[in-house]
């Protein structure tokens, strides 16, 4: 094979922008901004946003060119949409960067965030086990660092370490699973694996490999019982890092694993539409989904910490997203992508509100949100949009994400089928979910502020990011076709 470096470069243009941008941020910080502490943070933020914007432009305009470089990467509609979405989510998260007083190394933070985004965009396009693993590790390593970035806080370090250990072990399982897949099929390309698997059928080692891959998937998507890291990390990590972990990382992980499971392991899907189920990954995913829905929604009720509540809600949403993964093979990835992307927007937004509040004082308990409507109407209004979207209230995007995912799942066997029960479970639990979402809203919109509460000043970038996220949620809720018709 003669190497098509030019084609590779064209395909990797967004990643190039991101990496060059990251290096530029570091360089300019080192030679110029470091000596101007007042501007250091702004310079890093500005350069980071510019890098993300140019990368986003490159991602949108790259065009669906199919297989790149002998099938190492695949640029289809899904890859392009995911790249764009993770870049947007990363930009929104970056806008939440705390100011210099509370963040010691803004340039390094920005650069690592850009590297993490590079990992996400590569995950979106990976079509080969090696590329997938490396992209995943690139993103994960960056996120471990970001989670532990706040050196003044013991919680941040602990969050980083726990995330690292859990993720490291999940990566070990994933790698072992990949090695078995390689051994069984003799190749790393997803298409070749698929053809080989069809030819040789099931074997116990294949099942082991499948479950190992799903362990890593469960970790990435924060699905029960591989969710345990999530509440701790959401609580301890700096707000932009938590926002990134909850949104872009989840989206990229879902897309990567959906690509892995459907085209790659599609023949090993098994069935769940009829009893008895047959061996394959779909019953496992259904199990994870059910467990996540139950645990996330009910666990959230016990939370008094805002961030932990969001984490449990993330676990619950992971359950619904996994339903979308099951349906993706038959219906297409549209509903799944729409759900994951809009969920990401709402989560980044919610963390953004928390981040903005944290600049005025610590935010631990739900009651720290009390009287937000008095302290900052902007934050309260945006928070209402995000929370109501998470709760799935129409006409916000969260509702149509759920609707389209559920509707597509039902096409697999109706309400009476095994997956149908999961849909019923998900819908029944959404009443429970409404309760804890209303707890947040009640504090923010109804409760009176504490006596010494001061108005919250929101920095301009954060305000723009929050308004952008809120209006995107409203707009995508009213015109879902803008996203769904891409696929």
């Amino acid at each position: 094979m003669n190497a098509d470096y030019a084609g590779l470069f064209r395909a990797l243009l967004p990643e190039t922008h991101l990496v060059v941008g990251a290096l530029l941020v570091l360089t300019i910080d080192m030679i110029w901004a470091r000596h101007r502490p007042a501007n250091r943070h702004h310079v890093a933020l500005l350069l980071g946003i510019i890098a993300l914007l140019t990368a986003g432009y490159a991602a949108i305009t790259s065009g669906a060119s199919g297989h790149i470089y002998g099938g190492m990467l695949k640029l289809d509609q899904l890859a392009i949409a995911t790249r764009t979405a993770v870049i947007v989510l990363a930009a929104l998260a970056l806008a939440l960067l705390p100011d210099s007083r509370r963040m010691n190394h803004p340039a390094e933070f920005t650069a690592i965030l850009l590297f993490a985004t590079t990992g996400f965009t590569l995950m979106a396009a990976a079509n080969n086990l090696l590329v997938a693993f490396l992209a995943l590790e690139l993103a994960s390593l960056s996120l471990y660092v970001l989670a532990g970035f706040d050196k003044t806080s013991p919680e941040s370090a602990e969050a980083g370490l726990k995330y690292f250990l859990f993720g490291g072990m999940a990566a070990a399982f994933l790698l072992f699973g990949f090695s078995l897949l390689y051994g069984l099929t003799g190749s790393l390309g997803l298409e070749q694996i698929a053809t080989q698997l069809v030819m040789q059928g099931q074997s116990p080692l294949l099942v082991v490999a499948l479950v190992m891959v799903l362990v890593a998937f469960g970790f990435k998507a924060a699905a029960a019982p591989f969710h345990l890291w999530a509440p701790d990390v959401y609580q301890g990590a700096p707000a932009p890092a938590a926002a990134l972990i909850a949104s872009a990382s989840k989206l990229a992980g879902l897309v990567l694993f959906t690509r892995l499971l459907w085209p790659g392991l599609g023949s090993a899907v098994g069935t769940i539409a009829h009893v008895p189920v047959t061996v394959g990954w779909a019953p496992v995913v259904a199990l994870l989904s059910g467990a996540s829905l139950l645990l996330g929604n009910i666990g959230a009720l016990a939370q008094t910490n805002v961030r932990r509540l969001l984490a449990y809600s993330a676990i619950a949403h992971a359950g619904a997203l996994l339903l979308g993964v099951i349906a993706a093979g038959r219906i297409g990835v549209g509903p799944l992508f729409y759900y994951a992307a809009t969920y990401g927007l709402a989560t980044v937004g919610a963390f953004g509100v928390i981040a903005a509040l944290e600049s005025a004082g610590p935010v631990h308990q739900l009651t720290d949100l009390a009287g937000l409507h008095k302290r900052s109407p902007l934050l309260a209004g945006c928070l209402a949009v995000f929370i109501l979207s998470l709760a799935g209230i129409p006409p916000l995007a969260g509702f149509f994400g759920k609707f389209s995912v559920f509707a597509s799942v039902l096409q697999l066997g109706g309400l009476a089928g095994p997956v149908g029960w999961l849909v019923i479970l998900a819908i029944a639990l959404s009443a429970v979910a409404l309760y804890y979402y209303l707890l947040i809203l009640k504090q923010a919109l109804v409760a009176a502020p504490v006596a010494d509460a001061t108005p919250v000043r929101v920095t301009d970038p954060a305000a723009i990011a929050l308004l952008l996220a809120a209006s995107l949620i409203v707009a995508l809720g009213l015109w879902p076709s803008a996203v769904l018709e891409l696929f």
Partner: protein
Amino acid sequence: MSLPVQHLWLIPALPLAAAAVGALTPRSGRTLAAGAAIATMAGAFLLACLALGGALDFPAAHQVLNFAWFDLGATSLRLGLLLDPLTAFMCVMVTFVSLLIFIFSTGYMKADANAKQFFCFLSLFAAAMLGLIIANSLLLLFVCWELVGLASYLLIGFWFHKPAAAAAAKKAFITTRIGDLGFLLGLLWLQDAQGTLLFYDGGHGILESAALANLTHLLPCGLAASTAIGLLIFCGAIGKSGQFPLHVWLPDAMEGPTPVSALIHAATMVAAGVFLIARVYPLMAADQLLANVPVHALTVVAFIGAITALMGALIAVAQNDIKRILAFSTVSQLGYMMLAIGVGSWVAAIFHLLTHAFFKALLFLGAGSVIHAAHHEQDIRRLGGLRPKMKVTFATFAIGMMALSGVPFLFSGFWSKEAILHAAHGWEVSSLPFYAAVLGVVLTAFYMTRLVAEVFYGAPRSDEASHAHENSPAMTVPLVILAACSILFSLLAWPSPWLQHQLDPSAHSESGDMSLVLPSIVLVALGLGAGWAYYGRRPRTKAESPDPLDRYAPGLMAALANRLGFDELYAATVGRLSSGFATLAAFLEVFVWDGAVRFLAGLGELSGLVSRENDEAGFNAGFDAGSKTLRDTGVAYSKAQTGDAHGYLRTLALGFVLLLILVILGGAR
């Protein structure tokens, strides 16, 4: 001149614009917000009248405007607008009643600092309600349905400084959402079965015969598919229209400002459930021709309606809060409407819905006028003697009361109730609902007489009552208009059933049959007479003196006053489960030594337990105690989160092993 369906969207768009104006004006801009709300509502009313004209030109036709909205897999999801007489009559009613309530609010909310926000929410609410009415797609209807719920959450909790208001708002929202879960499931099922959610689509809509024929197959449980879907959708209506057993939110919702009570709990929001069932009536009735099914959807509707009608009337007899009496009366009247649909006469239901909207809005606004005049005193035992002080309010309230009681001939309520009784009488399946309805008629006349006698007759029994005086014209004029409508509306029904013909031209005329008129006059007279005998003849002198009925049946009255203990029942059942579950969780925590093992062991137990928990919760949660239960469960769950990283890693490895074993076992089967 008439409004074609293409421009129907203008009707909700106008109040929506007013809501936007209200949202964007500063807090001081209350005049602007109120003006915008009233002006747009007046415009919407005119448009609705034009739409009515357009609809009546072709009463048998369903004029639709459908458009593609987004693609879902291979099928494209389409939404649409619908104009038929049902839509048009509802539009006129909602816009007209809303307009009057908006005007009334300018007086009622004069002193409130957040009045601007209030008008913004009211406009939003009206826009959502109108959107619901004109929708030609079950999905669009559901979206507006949820928006209505959201707006009512904001409005009930408007006086959020009252903890009771905040709690009531949450209870209303969550309770109605529980019904909506069934609605959503039915909706998804329909989408799955039919590939569309449009009501009418040139022969392909879900309410047209081709599609309905698809749903006549029997499910494994013995029900026809259409029955199951219909009942799921009916769950939504049960929640929204305060039907038994999800009625508990409606009386609590009286914590909101009185115009809200009038708008939501009389005219519009609660009517949405009845409207929904009337709209999907062909679907509900699709199983009527099947003989081998255990139950028909409409039968369930009829019995739920009858139970609600009787129960609401019974409880209303023993309430002492003026707004709660009216609230339970609303519950009862909504039961009548459901009963009418259930026995096959959705036209009678809509007729009653329309007449009820006017006189119930009148009664609520009258109550608001009383409350406003008496400085927010709502206990009828502490009112009294208001007749000479508030002549207009009294006169209009009395008209409303007579309409609700069904005083013959002159008042619209008589005719609509007559139609319902007639339909129930002719139902072949069972005569029980008819007798429940008959008993309800007596009770309605009785408790309304009690209400009027306690509030307006006798001597004032508190300082607030003795210092009351008539309100400003902004509040009394809408009362007069509504009172006039309550009387004039009877012209639509009598002497010829014009309205019925317009709504459903295919229905054969049955209102000419006057066989039930005489018995029902007797029933009403009985109720009125009994009420007057107990409460009017010798009015109570002190607020503390016992209720006359207490002497005869103290136990019954206490139970009724306690609203038949529904809240307590829910609290007890859910609470019992809760404590049992907490015990189990504590057991697991103590005796199973490790977080990971505890978690996984718990998961097995829980999947059994929690699904039972959720069956209960689907019925009960969101009521006063339900939330606590689930929260205890959550606490048990999050105990697994020990903070120990070793436990996390162990769970990961153990999860791998268990999943693998499950998959292999699953394959061996």
